[in-house]
């Protein structure tokens, strides 16, 4: 059940993550920067999805559709980049 408290807390967490990700840009880590940014983006998505989009206790079908999306993105990226990586 989404309460005002949980919504605001989530929001604060999201802003903190934004500041974190921007801040980490100024620490040169090579590839690590991209990984950190990606990880933070995933975390923010998880928060938005779980709290705002009610996916913490989801309809099974809604959860399955997210899984399908992720799996299909893997197919698209995997097979395409497979070509580019091996040229």
């Amino acid at each position, binding site marked *: 059940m989404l309460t005002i408290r949980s919504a605001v807390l989530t929001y604060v967490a999201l802003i903190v993550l934004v500041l974190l990700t921007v801040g980490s840009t100024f620490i040169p880590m090579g590839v690590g920067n991209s990984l950190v940014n990606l990880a933070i983006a995933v975390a923010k998505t998880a928060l938005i999805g779980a709290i705002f989009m009610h996916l913490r206790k989801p309809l099974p*079908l809604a959860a399955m559709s997210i899984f*399908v999306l992720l799996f*299909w993105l893997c*197919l*698209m990226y995997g*097979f*395409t980049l*497979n*070509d*580019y*990586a*091996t*040229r």
Partner: protein
Amino acid sequence: MTIAAELPERGSYFAPGWRLRDWLLTTDHKRIAWLYLSSLLTFFFIGGAAATLIRLELFTPAGDFMTDDTYNRMFTLHGVVMVWFFLIPSIPATLGNFLLPLMLGAKDLAFPRLNLASWYVFMLGAAIALWAMLAGGLDTGWTFYTPLSTMFTTDNTSIAAVGVFIIGFSTIMTGINFIVTTHKLRAPGQTWFRLPIFVWTLYATSLVMVLATPVLAATLLLIVADRVFGIGIFDPAQGGDPLLFQHLFWFYSHPAVYIMILPGMGVVSEILPCFSRRPLFGYKFVAYSSMGIALLGFMVWGHHMFVSGQSTYAGVVFSFLSFCIAVPSAIKVFNWTLTMRKGSVTFETSMIYSLGFLGLFVFGGLAGLFLAALAEDVHLTDTYFVIAHFHYIMVGGMVTAFLAGIHFWWPKMTGRMYSERWGRIAAVTSFLGFNLTFFPQFILGFNGMPRRYHTYPDEFQAWNVLSSAGAVVLALGYVMPLFYLGYSLFKGPKAPDNPWGATGLEWQTSSPPPKDNFAEPPVVTEGPYKYELPEIDRPVDHK
């Protein structure tokens, strides 16, 4: 839309009215199916007209009937119209729209207004694309390859791309509607493994529609962005890659061919058991293999790009997976064949079409294996072998299945019986005409005649003449149903609820059904395909 000569029966879905607004503002899935059917038939004959002109031109080796540019526009028109305006929506939007709620025991689809909107979106996109092609033309082929489409055409490419983009939305809307309907609106007792295979294939098709079409949208968007804004994602001079277009395009377009064929497989899965009086053999295998085709279909697109500059390693992977995808199709073919074993087979029109499907689909599918082999494909790609292969599947398979379905469910949809004699004549005519048209093309392709050329060396003429002659017979076979089916609307005998003695919820209601499909919501207590022949005495247990 034809008006029945006598008042439609009270209680049929035709009863609420025949004014224009009763059709154009309807949310009844059955009427929307008719809206789609009339537009799709129109587009089929437009695409067919283009094909006629192509075959006319190919009658002689020289390019005497059309200029090069005109010929390019002609096969582009044929491809775009046939693929996007006819094949992709064909069975789902007509038979699927009509039958899905009936087969589930529901009153309508989950989102009836979305359904009507999908037809309007479809018509808008088709109008735009058709206008673009007829007024100045599109000559890139239906495949829009870059850099031709982004850098070198000076005609209506962008507008045509926008039109197809819009049609894509219609597809996605239909897909969403079918998926949600199948999950949420089944009648009590209608569990997944009691569903007819037609529903399974519509579901698999809808998944592919939702997952593949957005990528087409992205691809067309990038083409238009390139032409209008100069965004060079496919332009090597800007560091882009023309091959990226092909990856994105075929990521959609290969699954698109499964959008086209899966519903046809579903139709045939309904008809073969009925006219063999045997249950479908291996129901679960057929259901699972439909889902398997939908999944594997997304992993093989690189087989359209073997000679394009794709890495050889990627080619090997795609080739292997393309061989794999033959397996679920083969499973279905074996199951269909075994369905007829020890059956009491009769040859109604839809059965003749279905048997034709079986043979022609197998033939075309086997040809696909030639193309899946990397080395062989180097020889065969972009030849008439490819054209023959996909026409065997699309026309010999899909159009045949479409006609099979139209005939099978015609009594249900219209409440009239058509002339079986003329139906059988048309079915056999189209079968013979089809083979005469397209079998020579296998030979032509193998001997090296390239596709999309309107001039060719003299030694190819004999086969081309045969093919063009076949096209005449095929056209005859396709035009015939217009006459006897149209005639049946006025003068055909009234159809009983279940003229074929088939199983399935749609046959438990009147022909035609009332507006809300069933007098009372049905309750399902047993599985599908409960056909029994007393002389065999083989009780089959389906969950």
